[in-house]
């Protein structure tokens, strides 16, 4: 999460005080990502150093704090627009703990992979229930919060769906006589797929 760009976005609406920026940041992220004051003021200092924001009243000698106001500069607006259009780097699969656990479970003798998969599925579904309860309590009042909950629900659901697919694939492989002791033999000459070339990342 870029606190830097979130602060630029808030300042694009007009000049604001440090304390106000912190409160609005939290309100705009549905209170899901709380910020401490130090994070806000350190980030503002760096933004000022880089010429992306300017302190109001030329009080450059004041220490950044709740009572100091800032405005966005032209360079800051340009940086904000650039950042909005640059997709985050999703081209490299993350080293996912859950995927690793399932891959390893397949190799460990005597492990009930279905049980491993179900333990993770249950945990994820319980998280989804908790988010749904929060969404129900909020009842659509906070749009930012609803968007964040939607995003979490789709993310968690995608992981459960992967678990479902993994279970079906493993069952099918076992039915076809696949032997876990010889798990994942790499065919001769096989190579890992290369990273998709989907535009350069900055």
């Amino acid at each position, binding site marked *: 999460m870029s606190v830097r760009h979130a602060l630029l976005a808030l300042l694009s609406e007009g000049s604001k005080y440090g304390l106000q920026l912190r409160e609005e940041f939290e309100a705009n992220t549905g209170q*899901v990502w709380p910020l401490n004051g130090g994070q806000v003021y350190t980030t503002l200092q760096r933004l000022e150093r880089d010429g992306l924001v300017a302190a109001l009243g030329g009080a450059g000698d004041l220490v950044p704090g709740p009572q100091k106001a800032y405005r966005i500069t032209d360079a800051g607006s340009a940086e904000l627009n650039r950042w909005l259009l640059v997709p985050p780097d999703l081209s490299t699969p993350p080293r996912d703990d859950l995927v690793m656990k399932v891959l390893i479970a397949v190799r460990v003798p005597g492990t009930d992979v279905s049980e491993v998969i179900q333990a993770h599925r*249950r945990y994820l*579904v319980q*998280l989804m229930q908790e988010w749904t309860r929060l969404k129900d309590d909020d009842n659509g009042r906070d749009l930012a919060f609803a968007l964040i909950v939607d995003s979490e629900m789709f993310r968690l659901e995608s992981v459960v769906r992967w678990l479902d697919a993994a279970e079906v694939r493993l069952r099918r492989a076992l039915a076809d006589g696949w032997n876990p002791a010889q798990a994942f033999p790499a065919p001769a000459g096989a190579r890992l797929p290369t990273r998709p070339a989907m535009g350069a990342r900055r």
Partner: protein
Amino acid sequence: MNALELRSISKVYGRGAAEVQALRDVSLTVAAGEMVAVMGPSGSGKSSLLTIAGTLEEPTSGAVLIDGKDTLRMSGGAKSRLRRRTIGYVFQDFNLLPGLTAAENVSMPLELDGTSMHKAHLAAIKALEELGLSSQARRFPDQLSGGERQRVAIARAVVGERTLLLADEPSGALDSVNGEAVMQLIHSYCKRGTAAVVVTHDLQLASWADRIVFLRDGRVVDQTAAPAGPETLLEQSS
């Protein structure tokens, strides 16, 4: 008292080589006010569980108790009364009668049960009002949107003094927004004391339930724990 109790239910269809064991020793209790979702791959026994819970079908072995009464020991007439008065059914394809208005569809189960036409109509209008459908009361099903039709079907399922709502993929024919509205509605009825069992393959919709039961090959393999406090997630992220 539990609104629904399934005790060691097994269900076998067919015989010999064609025998299919749909449910194997399934036990499930649903308390008044509780919403339970049943999930599992196709062929896992979800629909059989629901039809047996609704007394539309009898198990091969085991017992089905509704509001503490053993339904397998009831006469045909008593079972029919139970189905009309106590259990509400919601299906994926709404099952509204096309020749009746929304209000008539909702009042019909009460009229069949001997309530006067006037009283049944008032109860139907009240149920439709609660679902934000009072202006649609005189419309026929084909004049309603999919979401509205399903809400009418829910009004029909809860009208009167029903204590148990059984729903088979109630949002299956709806888009995600209307699907969610349907689950929210069932959830709000449960908060007022109705028990519900909802079969769904949609995880986001199942998340509305207080408890999710996982079926596999006709067995209950797992279920989610009792809900944690709603604040846990936000506490973790702070």
